[in-house]
């Protein structure tokens, strides 16, 4: 008996990449993707780009916080603690 192995192609991969990164795919499909990635430098690049994107989004800098806002909130906190 010949077992047909699942095959993933490039276009499908671009729709599966998040499920792949989230570990949300059945094992057979994960393996099929890994086989495809081993052969396809473009899809490997796509994976790298998604990872880099996630990293860049994670590094978004905070907006500058005005000191008077921080002062006011700190004061509100301290006053509340004193009164309770």
């Amino acid at each position, binding site marked *: 008996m010949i077992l047909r192995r699942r095959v993933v192609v*490039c*276009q499908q991969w671009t729709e599966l990449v998040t499920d792949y990164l*989230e570990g949300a795919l059945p094992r057979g499909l994960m393996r099929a993707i890994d086989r495809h990635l081993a052969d396809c430098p473009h899809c490997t*690049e796509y994976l790298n780009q998604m990872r880099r994107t996630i990293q860049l*989004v994670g590094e*978004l800098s905070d907006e500058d916080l005005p000191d008077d806002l921080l002062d006011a909130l*700190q004061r509100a906190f301290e006053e509340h603690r004193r009164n309770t």
Partner: protein
Amino acid sequence: MIDPAAEDALVARLRAGDGLAFRELVGAYQTVLLRLADTFVPSRAVAEEVVQETWIAVIQGIDRFEGRSSLKTWIVRILMNIARTRGVRERRTVPISSLDALSGVGGPVVSIDRFVGPPGRGAWAWPPAAWAELPEDCVTSAETKSLVVKTISALPEQQRRVVMLRDVEDCSASDVCDLLGLSEVNQRVLLHRGRSTVRAALERHFGEQR
């Protein structure tokens, strides 16, 4: 951002009435709370009020925080309750069901023109160009960062919330499902679409730099 290990110590200091600890907390979360509030209410001014109200609620409620969720999740939950109420009052549609969340979601995340072969099963005709070849300061430039902010701000609301919570705020998938009332599958769909849009924007941007 405050890592989970540092969070316990911070909570203890807050309970002891340490004003500087509260200042640290505000410093760590003010921006992300504002950006989240932005997705519920019509203007930055209202978003600022929502965040302000959130901090007041945190001040009043910190003794009731039981540590069943992380402090971050607890604060985000307070913010979302206030923001939803305000959003409704300001008559902005706030999608509440997962079904609403996925409205407008459809179509491939990469244009079909970039593939050759049978529909849905194409191979790259115009593959992505290697980002590793770009100079590192181009990838991490202020321009790139502002593009990322701009692209996230333009995402549909639920995608924006999921990307903010997952990738900016580093919340777990299950916390995000819980906070936004989403199924795991829908949470992933929204995350996928949001991230893919940001990747595509970066690809265009880097393409212009070559």
